């Protein structure tokens, strides 16, 4: 069997068989769902009812808003958890064992990244299916094929960005203790940095700017646009002013000093961030293994 395939397969098994690791990788997702059930949904419905009269579509739209945040968080936490295997291998000398085989260190390192992409992608797809079922169960409709294709595309972007971003963070630590701290910080911060726990409009302007600059939050924006567009048009039918206020307050799209970011802008920003974090990671990796 191909060496790379074999290594990825091994990392994958190590991840899958560690039930606690899988559970903790989606813990943030469970927290989002709980927060949402407890109060986020109600606050948001109340806020929208100030703008437009309540409609059947309203709840679905808010559900879709939550699902969008959830999908971007899942990409981050699962890819990070998968990279945890690398740190564990480093500390327990498994890496040294791999390095006694006729394989380049870079190749071995790459296998962890590929595994992280794979795990992120698969768990995000499972997340997507769960979200679709949730939306339908709560009275929403099935996604069109076009929408599914679009969502899978965004997942691919989100997982790639999250993976290289997390790789960059992972290369900064070398012990399991430090990694566990990193994991906690990322798991906590990501919900805020993507405007999932608290809507964008509810935080001070400079925090809004930080969120807009944070590349991963752009994946949330793309998910929101893709998931909510139909419902948005229905809920805010004939009220373009209200629609615009809502979309900016709740981060469906970003407005920076009166300039509105298009979806394409977000995609470009994400791709640029992927390239930047890949280059920084390569540099860090080179420095670490001089």
């Amino acid at each position, binding site marked *: 069997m191909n060496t790379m395939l074999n290594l990825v397969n091994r990392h994958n098994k190590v991840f899958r068989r560690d039930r606690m690791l899988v559970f903790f990788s989606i813990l943030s997702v469970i927290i989002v769902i709980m927060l949402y059930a407890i109060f986020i949904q109600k606050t948001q419905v109340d806020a929208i009812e100030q703008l437009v009269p309540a409609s059947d579509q309203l709840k679905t739209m808010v559900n879709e808003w939550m699902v969008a945040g959830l999908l971007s968080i899942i990409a981050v936490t699962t890819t990070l958890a998968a990279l945890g295997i690398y740190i564990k291998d480093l500390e327990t000398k498994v890496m040294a064992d791999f390095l006694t*085989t006729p394989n380049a260190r870079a190749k071995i390192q790459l296998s962890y990244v590929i595994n992280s992409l794979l795990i992120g992608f698969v768990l995000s797809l499972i997340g997507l299916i769960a979200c679709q079922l949730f939306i339908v169960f709560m009275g929403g409709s099935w996604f069109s094929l076009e929408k599914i294709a679009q969502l899978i595309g965004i997942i691919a972007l989100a997982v790639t960005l999250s993976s290289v971003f997390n790789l960059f963070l992972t290369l900064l630590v070398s012990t399991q203790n430090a990694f566990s701290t990193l994991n906690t910080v990322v798991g906590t911060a990501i919900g805020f940095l993507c405007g999932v726990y608290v809507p964008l409009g509810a935080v001070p302007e400079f925090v809004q700017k930080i969120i807009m600059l944070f590349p991963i939050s752009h994946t949330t924006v793309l998910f929101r646009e893709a998931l909510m567009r139909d419902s948005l048009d229905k809920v805010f039918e004939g009220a373009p002013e209200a629609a615009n206020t809502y979309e900016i307050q709740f981060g469906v799209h970003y407005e920076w000093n009166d300039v509105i970011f298009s979806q394409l802008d977000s995609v470009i920003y994400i791709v640029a961030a992927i390239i930047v974090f890949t280059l920084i990671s390569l540099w860090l990796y080179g420095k670490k293994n001089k």
Partner: protein
Amino acid sequence: MELVIDVKNLSKKYGSHEAVKGISFEVKKGALFAFLGTNGAGKSTSIEMLCTLLEKTSGDVKINGVSLGSRTNNYLIRKAIGVVFQQSILDTRLTVEENILHRGNIYKLTKKELQENWEFVNRYLHLKDIAKKKYGTLSGGQKRRADIARAIIHKPTILFLDEPTTGLDPQTRVFVWDAIKKLQEETNMTIFLTTHYMEEAAVADEIVVMKEGKIVSKGTPHTLKEQYTYDELFVFFNNGVDGTSLLTQHDLNFAEKNGEYRVRVQSTIHALDILKELQNFISSFEVKKGSMDDVFIRINEEVPLT
């Protein structure tokens, strides 16, 4: 005799600290070679350099005639060596078979080769009963068997073992040793090991003792014992006998502790003469041959053993 490891002036510096200070030694093909030394003597650093895990600062190392250093050469060396690490490096949630086949696959072996090698390791380490068990559920001895199996899955010609029996129960230590000896004898594999157990080093063909980054002694167990140890006679005297003056009369070199007299003798045979002289005065005696422990302690006298 063909040399499989040839080390000349090997050294390793970490900043201003020199962990290994220009050591030289040779290992013959098929030998059981033991590396002794207290913690911090530089054993692990040396072994890591030989295994291509750590870059040397200076010196020449040839393994199977290949110079250590360049990437291509290191790959050749890696194919020829197997390493048993001090700690477990297999995955706890994978079965022994999965673990070993996964690691075996990284050596770019064909399916057939891997299958053959799997049978080969089974022959020496008897994995049948544990092959389908998860590594994490195994006992210490079973784990060690799996660790060694992993290290030889690509049929290396040299096997490095870093304290392979530390923390194992006596029965398991014997098993591990039997497996190592059998591998050495039947496949002519060269065994290079570090150990803290002196009685284990005693079965090696050659021993190198390191201290503070330098080789302080080398030789066969026999020559080292001759060089560093002496045999001793322990005697207890009957009540009322003044052992001290008696031994002094006989012009013997001795030490006393709680009534036990420790007498240095040239050889165990020599003890017989002394015993004949003293037989009416002593209540019990014991004769001890110098051991590898003594060699180790003598060499490291001012360094406390760990």
